[in-house]
């Protein structure tokens, strides 16, 4: 017993910092997800020429909190014929896997919970894939046809698109030469080039596959409300349902972070090695100051006193963050004691990197939402055809050709930007070959006699 206490103490002593960070993520993430949902609703409203949520708080800014309270106090329903234990376990499994995957992400050079794990990106991808069990088990446990159908679709979709996503990741990893998240970003700093530019086709494949893996529109077949009510979530209500929601959005953040790290340069600002572009460092604080000033200008126009106060609070928050972000720039001025400046440097670099990382992740998420409101949902056989007949051949050919291009590049001593000369033609050839294969297949299918109607549940 004493040994156990000692071991616990030893563990806490060694790992208190990651534990606190982990707790912070688990505590804050639901709030972040709530606001991502609000942004999505606002975007949807904007694209459909509506206003979106406007009632709770100024411009609906408190809507996520009201929604969360509503979901928490809703009646918790478990169907009579459901497998109770599995029904209870499934949403927890989904959320647990998604949150665990967050531990491997490198948000800025200083902030990473599981520091420097050698298998970094594999850990994130592998653990977040565990979340699919939550969906399949939940669909099975609810003992309902719609749920089961949604669950089976979801598993088929994941199995089909994981190969393509994995091959796309391999392409990026070829350039990085390491699986460690921090080293991947450092490799991009040394190359002076985002891997997304070096391998655009791989980035595209990962983009499409990541939408399919997170079950987002236009690939949200597992929860297609026009066919399956709500798919695997049909029988879930209240808090359990919101757990699934949390898992879906956390997974979106995870795939966006992986794409950012591997293809979009992680926490590096654009053009990190070009010194005459250093003014880019000023942009984030300026942007926040602009938002703050806009909030101040809008304050007198709010109808209620509470809303005016809230607007002021938002403006204050923007100014505070702007000051924090501006600090590294201010530290470079000669007025500050150089000793103090050098002591605070890693801290502020972390903050700055964090801003760019979150900015890129947000841009990726914005693209997800944009696609959702633009493209109609695929049919299931179309989805499978896209995965198996186009993306998988494309990604495999792409890995092959990028590998050849890299060998050619090393023979010709191409460095940094010049490597583009080798990899861009390789990507284009891969795209052409994959399209050719697709065209040949469609031709041979049209020639086959009869042409039976597609099976929607295949």
């Amino acid at each position: 017993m004493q040994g156990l206490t000692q071991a616990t103490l030893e563990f806490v002593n060694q790992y208190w910092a990651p534990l606190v960070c982990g707790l912070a993520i688990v505590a804050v993430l639901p709030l972040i997800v709530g606001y991502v949902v609000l942004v999505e609703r606002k975007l949807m409203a904007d694209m459909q020429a509506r206003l979106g949520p406007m009632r709770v708080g100024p411009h609906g800014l408190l809507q996520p909190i009201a929604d969360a309270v509503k979901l928490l106090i809703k009646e918790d329903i478990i169907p009579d014929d459901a497998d109770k234990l599995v029904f209870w376990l499934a949403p927890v499994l989904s959320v647990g896997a998604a949150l665990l995957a967050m531990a491997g992400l490198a948000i800025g050079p200083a902030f990473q919970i599981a520091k420097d794990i050698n298998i970094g990106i594999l850990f994130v991808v592998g653990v977040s894939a565990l979340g699919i069990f939550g969906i399949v088990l939940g669909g099975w446990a609810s003992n309902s046809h719609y749920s089961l159908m949604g669950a089976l679709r979801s598993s088929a979709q994941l199995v089909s698109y994981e190969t393509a996503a994995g091959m796309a990741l391999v392409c990026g990893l070829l350039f990085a030469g390491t699986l460690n998240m921090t080293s991947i970003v450092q490799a991009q700093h040394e190359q002076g080039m985002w891997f997304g530019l070096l391998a655009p086709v791989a980035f595209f494949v990962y983009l499409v596959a990541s939408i399919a893996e997170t079950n987002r529109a236009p690939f949200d077949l597992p929860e297609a409300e026009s066919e399956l009510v709500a798919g695997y979530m049909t029988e879930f209500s209240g808090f359990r349902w919101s757990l699934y929601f949390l898992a879906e959005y956390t997974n979106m953040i995870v795939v966006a972070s992986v794409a950012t790290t591997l293809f979009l340069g992680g926490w590096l600002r654009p053009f990190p090695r070009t010194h005459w572009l250093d003014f880019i460092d000023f942009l984030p604080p300026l942007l926040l100051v602009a938002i703050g000033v806009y909030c101040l200008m809008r304050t007198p126009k709010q109808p209620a006193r509470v809303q005016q106060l809230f607007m002021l609070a938002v403006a204050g928050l923007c100014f505070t963050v702007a000051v924090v972000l501006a600090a590294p720039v201010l530290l470079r001025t000669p007025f500050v004691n150089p000793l103090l400046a050098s002591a605070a440097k890693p801290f502020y670099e972390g903050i700055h990197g964090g801003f760019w990382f979150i900015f890129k992740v947000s841009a990726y998420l914005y693209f997800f939402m944009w696609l959702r409101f633009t493209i109609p949902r695929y049919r299931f056989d179309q989805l499978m055809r896209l995965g198996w007949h186009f993306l998988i051949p494309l990604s495999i050919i792409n890995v092959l050709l990028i590998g050849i291009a890299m060998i050619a590049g090393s023979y010709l001593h191409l460095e940094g930007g010049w490597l583009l000369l080798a990899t861009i033609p390789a990507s284009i050839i891969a795209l052409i070959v994959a399209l050719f294969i697709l065209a040949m297949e469609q031709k041979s299918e049209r020639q086959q006699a009869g042409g039976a109607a597609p099976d929607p549940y295949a």
Partner: protein
Amino acid sequence: MPLRILMLDQVIFYFFAAIAVVSAILTVTRRNVVHSAIFLITALLATAGIFLQLRAEFLFIVQIILYVGGIMVLFVFVIMLVNLDVAVRQLQFARQKWVAMLISLALAAQVGLMLWSTGKMPGQGMPVLVAAPVDKLPPNSEAVARSLFESYLLPFEIASVLLLVAMIGAVVMAKKRA
């Protein structure tokens, strides 16, 4: 200092080992096939945990990724092919009682022999897998890659050709005759 780390290692090892053993037993005793599959996952994840405790990160993540894929498919098969209502009522896996007992005895004898030959009976000091110190290990995935692509290149290639043949065979057999 080393003694304390040993302590922590021991706690983690026995934690995962207990989970693995209990869920392995539950895997074969549950009547409901889906429950069995869930406990199978738990057992495999606990094994992955032991790999992690030994600082074999690459093995840990490969265990998770491969078995997730594998058991995912198993789940789908179970849901689609097994009639659960019938399966729950039937008594399964009971016909090979004597064979199973013989095999378990042989396995127990092997484990006992291993314990005896290392001179550490369970009574005198618990046997524990001690991980190598972190700073002395080369990066794990690189070590695996070196042994696969340098020392054992030929067997590796033969295995991959075998897998490729199996894959093509599966496609050919599954394809409908035109």
